[in-house]
């Protein structure tokens, strides 16, 4: 009896040695700095997805190595290098801001390492890249959804607010303008801001003299919150519409009453979650954080899930989950992946084709309005 036990123990130990491999997923997020909320919420969702599953089919352990880039492009690129050289990462997950992802992509591309961004929506992130994939829709779609929603609600003239420092905002503004004018709307003016700025009174005064039907804000939430506050303080009642960069609790916390009625397109709203995957995620999220599930976290969970799925497919084919070429191939050819944010199909350019939701700030909460399919 004793002998069998020790044999079993030894076997377990040996297989343990053979199996206890770590497959490293390198994560780059802005955990601090001006857009820290994106990084923090992404990390929150990622942690949930990781707790739900971090074992591959062959018994290997997935290990997350998370680096903070402080929202800085140079730091983001350096973080990728470090993850590749020091941590031997098989896949890179990140970033949120398109500009930062664009700084990371060439590094991953050069090292022939698959990279998946969960939330960068600028088309240029994946353009011409063989190793870059994304779990979210792209800005031409998002901009078109914004424009269509505004036009459908009888808004004919718009002022566009662009954050000149953010590739995301520049691209999104372009997409919005194109779709808005194509649909018969008129762009009265484009005003530029810089992320990190706090005083938008000059821009707001200019907008006020234009009397638009809608203000299309394509930047991020810190500026959105202050700008809408300054606009309302100056007596502007024009509604704001934004995109996935504004839907953060800070919009309401900082914007206060002024943020009421702020509409925006987003990837996910838990009120619209109907699939079992989404429900399980939302339930786990509530249990862990005791607050509504946000879209950045949901996207990060999906990107992580896609990585796991790709690695498992490689294992099915008898390849190692650390086979970068194989993992990349599977990621780029993801079809019908059932994620938290909906069914994800990756097109030939590495972009996810999926639906968007429109939310509105109501009583300090993000109320779900509608879902728009591609």
């Amino acid at each position, binding site marked *: 009896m004793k002998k069998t036990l020790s044999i079993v123990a030894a076997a377990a130990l040996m297989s343990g040695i053979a199996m206890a491999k770590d497959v490293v997923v390198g994560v780059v997020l802005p955990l601090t700095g*001006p857009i820290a909320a994106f990084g923090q919420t992404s990390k929150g969702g990622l942690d949930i997805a990781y707790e739900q599953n971090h074992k591959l089919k062959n018994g290997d352990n997935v290990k997350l190595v998370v680096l903070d880039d402080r929202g800085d492009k140079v730091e983001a690129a350096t973080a990728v290098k470090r993850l590749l050289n020091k941590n031997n990462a098989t896949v890179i997950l990140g970033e949120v801001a398109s500009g930062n992802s664009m700084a990371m992509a060439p590094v991953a591309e050069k090292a022939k390492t698959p990279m998946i961004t969960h939330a960068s929506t600028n088309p240029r992130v994946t353009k011409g890249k063989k190793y870059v994939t994304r779990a979210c829709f792209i800005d031409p779609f998002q901009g078109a959804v914004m424009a269509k929603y505004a036009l459908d609600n009888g808004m004919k003239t718009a002022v566009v607010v662009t954050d000149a420092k953010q590739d995301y905002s520049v691209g999104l503004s372009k997409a919005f303008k194109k779709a808005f004018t194509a649909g018969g709307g008129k762009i009265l003016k484009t005003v530029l801001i810089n992320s990190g700025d706090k005083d938008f009174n000059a821009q707001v005064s200019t907008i006020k003299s234009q009397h638009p039907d809608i203000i299309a804000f394509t930047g991020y939430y810190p500026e959105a919150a202050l700008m809408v506050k300054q606009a309302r*303080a100056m007596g502007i009642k024009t509604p704001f519409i934004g995109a996935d960069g504004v839907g953060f609790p800070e919009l309401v916390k900082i914007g206060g009453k002024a943020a009421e009625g702020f509409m925006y397109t987003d990837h996910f709203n838990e009120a619209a979650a109907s699939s079992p995957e989404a429900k399980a995620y939302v339930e786990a999220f509530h249990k862990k954080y005791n607050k509504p599930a946000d879209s950045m976290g949901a996207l990060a969970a999906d990107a992580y899930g896609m990585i796991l799925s790709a690695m498992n497919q490689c294992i099915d084919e008898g390849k190692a989950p650390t086979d970068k070429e194989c993992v990349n191939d599977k990621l780029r050819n993801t079809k019908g992946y059932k994620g938290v944010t909906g069914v994800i199909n990756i097109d030939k350019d590495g972009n996810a084709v999926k639906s968007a939701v429109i939310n509105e700030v109501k009583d300090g909460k993000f109320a779900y309005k509608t879902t728009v399919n591609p």
Partner: protein
Amino acid sequence: MDLTTFLQQLINGASLGSMYALIAIGYTMVYGVLRLINFAHGDIMMVGAFFTFMATAAGLPFTLAVLLGILGSVIVGVLTDKIAYKPLREAPKISLLITAIGISFFLENLFNVIFGGVPKAFSAPDYLTKIFHLGDVYLPITVIIIPIVTVAILSGVLWVLYRTKYGMAIRALAFDIPTVKLMGIDADRIITLVFALGSALAAVGGIFYAVSYPSIDPLMGVIVGLKAFAAAVLGGIGSVTGAVIGGFILGFTEIFVVALFPELGGYKDAFAFFFLILVLLFRPTGIMGEDLERSRF
């Protein structure tokens, strides 16, 4: 641009300019005495805003919170001096400058670790966020209060400098530290006093900044610190009046670049700094600055 918009932009410029002026005074004062560009000034400002934020979050009345914020900044400022700058009194100025940058990074990251990088909503009392309507022109009450506070602080600082014994000691230090020591004055104590004053000024600036733009984060002092520094240099660093003038020039430049060329609004900082370079090309010591070696306030 119609008249209403123009008047509104004037008010916007005054509002932003007075903000820069208030912060620039602190920069210029420390520089005037120690010949140290205290790059941590913007971060002390952030510290003041955060202490006030914490105190209000704890339910204290705003006035008390402001006092605690100022006190907190003074303590941090004086500690900074004792720990980081004092050992370098005899060292070359460049070492001190690099230490100041180090302190700046340290404070930013310390607050990042404690509070996280997500911006926090700063709640100001209603009487500070009031807005007057003059026809179609909107006048926030801070546009009136900040210049008053700036003038009050300015006179307070000048009174300390020119009417008190400590002020005399500070002015003497600005000329020659070793000689002042030979006269039996405790130079270190006076320098600590300068840092305490400078930090209190930074805190007041930080609190008003947070009242005007109620979103605070550990990096909030970086950009505005740089702008205030530019304002101080523009006005002639070391000159308190110059700092005020520089602040207003910078504020108006920024606002009117956006107002006149909205398409170029993304480059307003570039314009502001280009203007700074232009001024320095023709007046290397800034607008109010005299010969650097002779100017002491």
